[in-house]
């Protein structure tokens, strides 16, 4: 009962002290604003930076996910001629037989699409457009998690017959046909007539920034015979049954290909395997580091803001020495004086935090508008910023408040 009464008394006293603190802050409006500005900038940058970092991470993650589900890609090795390295897929090491063997012998592989690729001029509708022609299997769209806007994908039968059918990317379609539906139209690639049977949905920029929608997909058999004229593949796109099996599958494919290519123990692989999960993990950890880094920089500005508060509170204690002396003389407990200045510092930093959160929300919206990208504001960062600004008030207000409470009343009353 008595405890409750004291608690009530303490809460009421804290409230009254907070009112005194607010009045003291209002008296020095300019100074209070400038002092809070440090916290405002700190909190605003924490909120904005974390939002931008999260937004970037979400965007990269969606790009990685857009590659498809559980994707493994086997690239032919790079070809070196003298000192010149021609890059992935340039060497002629992977054959159709390799692709078939992988599909047959590696149990975790759910879908296979051998890929050949060439750049070629496409002519249709009286216009022409240079684009990328890729030969794939019917499973390709499933592997890449890609949908058709209209028409259909070619089938196994078209592979067997090396049919002259094509599925066209939205960008290429737009360049050649404008708003017309290209399905059913004919198109000439390297002067060979193809029939367009499907239109791909737009997928946007890929991870490298290239436009994935500027392409024409045809059966790989047709592509090898008519377009590239080669019997080697650029790569093999594979879908693995689950994310958990990706690593095992990768190992099995590696040993299978080394065996087929008769590579002795000390020789390097003549192929490369691109693991989507690994890339996603790497990208994820990189963007996490960037977010942390941005947050850390913002955190430093919060620290500087806190030091600003401490500085002003120390000035305030010196300025108001006489007031403190009077309060102590009429019977203020040292703890009451300490509480008064502590609350003043906390009020200052919390107000700064509040304005900072609002400024941070505004700033991230603005950044999103300028960079045409969607920042993800996290509630956690807002709560964290509030807690941190409260903690800053307590931490940096503590020493000045202590100093005020420790003043000798006789000296304080004489202070001019």
């Amino acid at each position, binding site marked *: 009962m008595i405890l409750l*009464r004291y608690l009530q008394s303490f809460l009421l006293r804290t409230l009254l002290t907070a009112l005194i603190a607010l009045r003291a802050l209002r008296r020095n409006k300019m100074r209070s604003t400038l002092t809070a500005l440090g916290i405002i900038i700190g909190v605003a940058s924490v909120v904005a930076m974390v939002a931008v970092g999260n937004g970037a991470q979400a965007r990269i993650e969606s790009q990685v996910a857009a590659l498809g589900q559980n994707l493994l890609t086997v690239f032919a090795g790079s070809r070196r001629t003298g000192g010149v390295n021609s890059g992935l897929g340039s060497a002629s090491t992977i054959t159709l037989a390799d692709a078939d063997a992988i599909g047959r012998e590696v149990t975790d592989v759910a879908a296979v699409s051998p890929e050949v690729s060439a750049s070629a001029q496409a002519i249709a509708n009286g216009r022409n457009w240079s684009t990328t022609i890729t030969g794939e299997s019917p499973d390709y769209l499933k592997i890449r998690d890609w949908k058709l806007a209209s028409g259909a994908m070619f089938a196994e039968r078209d592979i067997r017959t090396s049919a002259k059918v094509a599925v066209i990317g939205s960008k290429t379609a737009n360049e050649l046909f404008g708003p017309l539906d290209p399905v059913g139209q004919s198109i000439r690639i390297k002067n060979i007539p193809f029939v367009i049977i499907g239109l791909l949905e737009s997928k946007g920029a890929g991870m490298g920034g290239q436009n994935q929608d500027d392409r024409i997909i045809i059966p790989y058999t047709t592509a090898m015979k008519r377009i590239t004229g080669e019997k080697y593949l650029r790569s093999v796109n594979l879908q693995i049954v689950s994310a958990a099996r990706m690593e095992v599958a990768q190992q099995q494919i590696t040993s299978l290909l080394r065996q087929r290519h008769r590579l002795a123990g000390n020789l390097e692989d003549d192929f490369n395997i691109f693991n989507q999960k690994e890339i996603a993990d790497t990208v994820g950890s990189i963007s996490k580091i960037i977010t942390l880094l941005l947050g850390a920089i913002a955190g430093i500005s919060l620290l500087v803001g806190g030091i600003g508060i401490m500085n002003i509170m120390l000035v305030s204690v010196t300025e108001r020495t006489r007031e403190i002396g009077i*309060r102590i003389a*009429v*019977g*203020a407990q040292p703890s009451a004086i300490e509480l008064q200045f502590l609350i003043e510092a906390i009020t200052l930093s919390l107000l700064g935090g509040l304005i900072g959160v609002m400024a941070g929300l505004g700033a991230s919206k603005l950044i999103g508008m300028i960079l045409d990208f969607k920042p993800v504001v996290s509630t956690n960062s807002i709560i964290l910023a509030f807690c941190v600004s409260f903690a800053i008030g307590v931490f940096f207000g503590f020493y000045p408040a202590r100093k005020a409470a420790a003043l000798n*009343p006789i000296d304080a009353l004489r202070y001019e």
Partner: protein
Amino acid sequence: MSLQNASAALIELHDLVKTYKTGDVDVKAVRGVTLEVRRGEFLAIMGASGSGKSTLMNVLGCLDQPTGGSYSLNGTAVAGLNRKELARLRNRKLGFVFQSFNLLSRTSALENVELPMFYTDPLISLRVRHRRALEALRQVGLAERGGHHPNQLSGGQQQRIAIARALVNQPELVLADEPTGNLDSRTSMEIMGLFQTLNDSGITIMMVTHELDIAAYCKRIVVMRDGVVISDTRNENRRLAQQELAALDKAEQKARLA
């Protein structure tokens, strides 16, 4: 206040010593004061600067701790109390009046008077604080000035506000340190008149002054020199401020008529 309490000693000092350390040198400001003050007394402590009267006042006011001897206030031994307990004593038992008033500027007179009650535990309700502050302002004749800020008031009025603040927690003792030091002679007379009225109503007052004509309003005069009491006498020819003020008014009126 009961009758048997009225004659009991409010303050008992026995061989009180206060030594300051300034660098390597010990300054003995008070060197053995023994003094007894009863309820209802109106006592002046006189002495030149450096006589130790202000130091004695600080110790009496629980703003400072003695380094030797004993001090008992209303039966409580003060030596050995911590800062918290001293603050409680100041809040409940003592009222201060300073030479330079020491009011909070940019704070209304009423709020200045309410200040000591803000630090009283358990918390006094806002309404009661308000009522008691107004009552104290009425006692010093400034009930209608509660809303004014100190810089809108004359020196005499500011000192009255300070006296109201000293009275508001109904202390056992009012301590005044050169209360008329910053005031002209007529205002000084008015303040001393107020003190005499308060003392007549039973409030114990101790005052430090170096002016003999101000000490002459008190009932008892203690003179200090070099940290010791050299004389302690009852003031037989006490000046009465109210009568003097009335006489002064009459003289002024006559001068204006003439």
